[in-house]
């Protein structure tokens, strides 16, 4: 399947969704259009709003803040998840002792944590970053932990017999072997990093996309809410695309579905 064709299909899906939305918000086909507009706005309004934002230029500032927060949350959270994941996987005793606490921590509603982060880290970007980290960390952690345990016993035994010490095993065996697990979790956590940042902003801040959305929500400005969400999504797709590029580069050694050259 060629790239253009694929792109075409992708665009088609978007067109269908927008069309449905448009029909729902302008005709009576799916219920009272006024009510639908009240809750979902209309595609034209949303696009116009996004246009105004970008034309006005203020959106860049908010986008920049959110981007920074998400990037920090993603970076710190995933590095933390990877490091602790490896550490736990290599220290079964430690893992066994802390296991229930990690699981419990993962179950804390992040919304409740927001005031505590604000207390410790202030209302600046760091409390949002912390919120993002609490989401990203666990996703990456559990996957890395499992990924390390999935290393092929034969490869591991061989590597040990080749004289690798714990650090070298990590670098040459565990890490590459767990990479696909890591990347799988990174795809999930890109989204969650942004969610964390936005929720943090939503719960208390003076800038960022979450702030914009919160402002809009309080005054029934659904157009603003949806415009904010679309900007957000576009921006996550972008980050995820970068992650995918890196992934393909690092996992070049994998067998692709077997076919010979044409």
């Amino acid at each position, binding site marked *: 399947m060629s790239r253009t064709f694929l792109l075409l299909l992708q665009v088609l899906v978007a067109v269908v969704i927008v069309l449905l939305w448009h029909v729902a918000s302008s005709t009576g086909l799916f219920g009272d259009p006024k009510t639908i507009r009240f809750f979902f706005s209309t595609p034209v309004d949303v696009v116009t709003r996004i246009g105004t934002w970008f034309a006005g230029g203020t959106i860049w500032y908010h986008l920049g803040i959110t981007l920074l927060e998400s990037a920090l949350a993603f970076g710190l959270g995933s590095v933390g998840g990877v490091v602790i994941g490896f550490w736990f996987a290599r220290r079964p005793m430690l893992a066994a002792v802390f296991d229930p606490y990690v699981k419990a921590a993962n179950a804390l509603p992040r919304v409740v944590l927001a005031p505590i982060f604000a207390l*410790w880290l202030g209302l600046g970007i760091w409390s949002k970053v912390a919120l993002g980290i609490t989401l990203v960390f666990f996703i990456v952690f559990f996957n890395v932990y499992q990924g390390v345990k999935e290393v092929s016993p034969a490869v591991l035994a061989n590597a040990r017999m080749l004289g690798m010490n714990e650090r070298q095993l990590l670098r040459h065996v565990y890490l590459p072997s767990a990479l696909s697990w890591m990347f799988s979790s990174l795809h999930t956590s890109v989204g969650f990093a942004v969610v964390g940042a936005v929720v943090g902003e939503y719960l208390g801040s*003076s800038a960022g996309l979450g702030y914009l959305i919160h*402002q809009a929500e309080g005054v029934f400005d659904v157009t603003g809410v949806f415009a904010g969400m679309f900007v957000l999504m576009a921006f996550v797709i972008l980050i995820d695309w970068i992650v995918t590029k890196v992934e393909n580069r690092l996992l070049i050694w994998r067998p692709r579905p077997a076919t010979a050259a044409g």
Partner: protein
Amino acid sequence: PVQAQEKKDVSLAVGGKPLLYYLPLTIAERKGFFKEEGLNVEINDLGGGSKALQALIGGSVDVVTGAYEHTLRMQQKGQDIRAVAELGRFPAIVIGVRKDLADKVKSAKDFKGLKIGVTAPGSSTAMMAQYAMVKAGLAPSDASIIGVGGGASAVAAVKQGQVDVISHLDPVIAKLEADKDIVTLIDTRTEQGTKDLFGGSNPAAVVYAKTDFIEKNPETTQRLVNAFVKALNWIRTASPEEIAAAVPDEYHLGDKGLYVAAVKSSKESYSRDAIVQKAGMESVVGMLKTLEPEFANAQFDTAKTFDPRFVEKAQKR
């Protein structure tokens, strides 16, 4: 003698800035009253009034625009917090009943067994609904209190009949009234409605800060209060249309007419002189004692909840 200003940058927290409840803040910001006073105010919008208070206690912000009631609660927790200016003299909360139940439910007496939608359990909307029930001779637990959130979800809850009664603020009320979804039973946006329920005024939004902060930064505090007093004065004289023009377009609820109507009905609730009246304080204390068992025998020192010096000085200019 003009004192030296201790702090130029002030960070302020508010729980839901676009709400009409906090209109004086938006006006002070948009009309440049903070700037005129030489202040650089960073406004942090938080998820709710209680989050704003937590931010203050935690030291993330210097001042808060929030409910007067907070100062009383904090007194019980040993946190020294004082109001320095009153922004709203009435709670501006409206209790309405769904249209199709209007002929059966005429007053708080009839709330027994109904579902009452409030912004959040434990919030002031919830407390007022319960207070109304207690005054009507019911127990606070005779109706079920359902948190429906602040925005569109509250509207949805009424439209879909998931709650029978709603105790809420503008703009949710304005929207429901405009769509003729509810019939108002108690309206504390007006003097009459507030008097009927509380027997007098009942301070709502105030500007408060830690006593520490006030003591250490009297001049900054003064300037802040000056700005808010200016905003209140401006609101008193402005027409609803002028107010609508002064706030950002996004605040217009997607419909300027609706916003103007909402401003019109709320206008009376904003403070006249920015002073919290003694009777109003007692009224809030009464409500707390009625609704919260743990406060029933508590001692409140209302004199320590409001510091009128700054307003008095501001009025003199």
